[in-house]
């Protein structure tokens, strides 16, 4: 299973994150997790939200550059080496991991977002090995 991730391009200037978050808040969008990748000039905000389609539309209407893409949400068991095993499985299938961040979602284990160059295949491999992946309705 894959979930939707909201991505926003932001210039690296004061108050820009504030504007993005306020716009989502005013639209009543619940943000579950956030991660930011940045350079000195610009950043990319990655967020898992409820109602991702509507969240994207709200931002686009407010002249932000936003888009949705799929990402794997894996529930990693609370045990030493669990994440390493998950990563090893993906690696063994010659799939490249692009980025990873933790999701703050309540439940068993540690939910982690993983972006690879073949998400569908990576998710299938994990599921076949008994690793739980989440769908949009489960977050």
């Amino acid at each position, binding site marked *: 299973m894959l979930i939707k991730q909201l991505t926003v391009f932001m210039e690296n200037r004061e108050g820009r994150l504030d504007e993005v978050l306020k716009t989502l808040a005013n639209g009543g969008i619940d943000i579950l997790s956030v991660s930011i990748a940045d*350079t000195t000039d610009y950043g990319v905000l990655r967020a898992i939200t409820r109602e991702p389609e509507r969240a994207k539309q709200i931002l686009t209407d407010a002249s932000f550059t936003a*888009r949705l893409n799929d990402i794997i949400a894996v529930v990693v068991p609370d045990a030493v080496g669990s994440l390493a095993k998950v990563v090893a499985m993906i690696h063994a299938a010659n799939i490249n991991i692009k980025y990873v961040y933790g999701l703050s979602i309540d439940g068993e284990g540690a939910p982690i977002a993983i*972006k690879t160059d073949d998400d569908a295949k990576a998710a299938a491999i994990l599921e076949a090995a008994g690793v739980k992946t989440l769908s949009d309705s489960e977050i």
Partner: protein
Amino acid sequence: MIWNEAKECMSRDEIEALQSARLVKVVNRVYHNVEYYRKKMQEIGLEPGDIKGIEDLDKLPYTTYADLRDTYPFGLAAVPRSEMVRVHASSGTTGKPKIAVYTRRDIDIWAECVARCLSMAGITRDDIIQVGYGYGLFTGGLGAHYGAEYLGALVLPMSTGNTQKLIDMMIDCDVTSIACTPSYLLHVAEDLEKAGLVDKIKLKSAICGAEPWTNEMRDQMEARLHIKAYDIYGLTEMMGPGVACDCEYHKGLHIWEDHFLPEIIDPATQKQLPKGSDGELVITNLTKEGMPLIRYRTKDLTSIEYDKCECGRTMARIQRFRGRSDDMLIIKGVNVFPSQVEAALLTIDGTTPHYMLVVDRVGNSDTLEVQVEVAESAFTDEMQSLEKLSKAVHDKLKTAIGLNAKVKLVEPNGLEHFDGKSKHVIDKRKLYQ
């Protein structure tokens, strides 16, 4: 020191008589040898015989960049290919460069013009001069080089790009003079200061050009390097550096009126203005054989003083440049038109045609930042794709304008969208006072 007193100190009457005779000749030459000019004159019913002297100058049509572009590369050449010995070029507004064609005699006259300028700066055959302009299609390197050799000075053709070597040889060879852009000389001064080597140099003078500079910059370089600095002016289309230069009184740049006929026009009405007026500088080549230009619009805004200078020269003086009547920028001595940037961006997927050029001078070096909007279609969740886009823009601009620009990706609609061209530029350097 006056290199050619017979010419540089002629009386106004003598200058005008010589200019009139040469103007008649050059107009005849282009009419008979250059089809493009002949047609232009015929279109307005002008015969070479209608031009009897400089008083008839304003009857002649102007030559602009568009004419050079339309006739690129050799359409305005007035001599057969076998007479041409060299080509130089500078960037044009879009695509094709502006080129200049020289005969052997043109190269000699150019060398003499530069020699007059160097002489004005007190340089003699006993001097050792480093040429720190680029050698190549750009006129700076070879122009200064030939002039210095013509004068009999010892020339070190340094070109650009290796400041350390320039400084080492400046000290090792007891270099007494340097020709380079003013911003580069300040950069050299900084490096000399950092290394504690200012006391080790024998430099006496600097001939700086290829970009506009201020009196403050002159004061700075003179004080920091204990030298005298002179401003040399020129443009590829007319010849290259050495069209005009300032003397020790710094009352404007003496233009070599026996070879270049200057006038000031109103860029809006395109009418010639009376002597002393402010407007656009227009120059006519009086002696050039390869590709003489008639009433070439330089787009430089200034005025001209005609009274005799304290230095003894009578050649008219171009006053401080007040700006340009087009949107050309001079960055690190390189001519850049915003339209070149626009054309380059249009070839890159993932950017919109909206952009902003921010030019600044950090320390003594010009910087160019190009702000480019990221097209929505090009945006993904991956940083890599943005970095790739940024690099693609950088590389494309490097090819198009020859400069390493800092590329800044901005949000779509993050730039104000203007219709006018000139609003694509923020120049923080304050080069024109």
